[in-house]
């Protein structure tokens, strides 16, 4: 049997951690301010400022607690917003490329050594 992913689940069935899938980390020192119905976000490593919508900002807020993968972020946001995980998954998957390009998020390589 080939193991591709390993899930750590709480006694209540909540997904706590997944190994073998891409995790994302928020760049340190980001400044974010609400500007109208968007967010102005300054990235200290690139010196660039971006305007983000609420969904992208929500992802950054979840990542403030530490690196996470899409499923974990969806779980956290679904709990808070009442949106379905499926809806959130689509929204969040669409965010990654841009957030990475803006330097606000970086991909963490899946720790394959944890796999069996």
């Amino acid at each position, binding site marked *: 049997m080939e193991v591709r992913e390993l899930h750590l689940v709480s006694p209540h069935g909540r997904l706590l951690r997944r190994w073998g899938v891409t995790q994302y980390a928020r760049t340190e020192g980001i*400044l974010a*301010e609400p*500007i*109208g*119905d*968007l967010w*102005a976000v*300054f990235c*200290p490593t690139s*010196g*660039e*400022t971006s*305007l983000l919508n609420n969904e992208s900002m929500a992802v950054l807020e979840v990542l403030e607690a530490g690196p996470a993968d899409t499923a974990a972020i969806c779980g956290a946001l679904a709990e808070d917003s009442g949106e379905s995980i499926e809806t959130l998954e689509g929204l969040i998957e669409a965010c990654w490329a841009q957030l990475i390009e803006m330097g606000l998020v970086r991909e963490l390589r899946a720790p394959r050594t944890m796999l069996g």
Partner: protein
Amino acid sequence: MSSAPRSHQTLGDTDTLAFAKVLADAGFGIDVGAVSVHVRSDSKLFARQLQSVYAHFPLMDRAQWADVHLTINRASGFRRLIRPQVILQCDGRQPFEPFPANAPLPLFEWGCNWMIGQRLNDLLLLHAGAVERDGLALLLPAMPGSGKSTLTAALSLRGWRLLSDEFGAFNPDSGTFRALLKPVALKNQSIEVIRTFAPNAVFGPEFPNTRKGTVAHLAAEPDAVERRHESARPGAVVLPKWQAGSPTRWEPLTENVLFGALAFNAFNYSVLGATGFRSVVRLVRQCPGWQLVYSDLDDALATIDAAWPQVRERQLAAGQ
């Protein structure tokens, strides 16, 4: 950073030949408010052109500190005889191609603005016209073809104090705007528009066939020169847009648009990093903003004047 001027003799009071000698020997310092510029030149024509648009500026002591040092000299060799040119140098570098020998003033103005944009990183330099009334700055951020300089010039000739035609120079420490008082550079049909609008306005010579077409410089009013060390608190932002034949339209701006107009249109926003970001956020929070579409200059000014009491009340209330 420049301090208050020491000399009361103005450039306009000085004999042109004597000034040309000063310019060629020790050079001349111009204190434009937030910076002072030292310039040397062997061009007598340049001396005359400087006098035409900096007439009210004091003739500064040569020992005084200058933030920017420039030389504008005539090209030597056969060049001086065939298609003579002037060359601008700053810190031993030549950042621009030479200009025709009869156009040292536009070369000086562009060179000066370029150097200020490169050097003055203790201020956030927004690309905007800036004028003052009631101690409050009105910013006119530049968009291509916006008519920023035309509107800035017109306001400066109708009781608003000119701070700058090119830079909204915001001091993040004090939260105020400083003057970078240089002549307003008007281009092409704007020159005639302002000549008609204010027949007594003082212009330097017209320079046809520059990279930007015909250019002429409008001298700052004496009061603006006298008060160039007075800063102004943020007041409001107006995004001007000149549109032929359009009725005047005055529409509030969303914060998103305002943020973009300031941050993404600044000379040194990214150089200042987090300080630039915080400064723009602060300005967006503090200043109401409007889009002004216009074709009639008098009507545009009347619209701004009509909105101004509301700005003043808001900023007074915020300051208390």
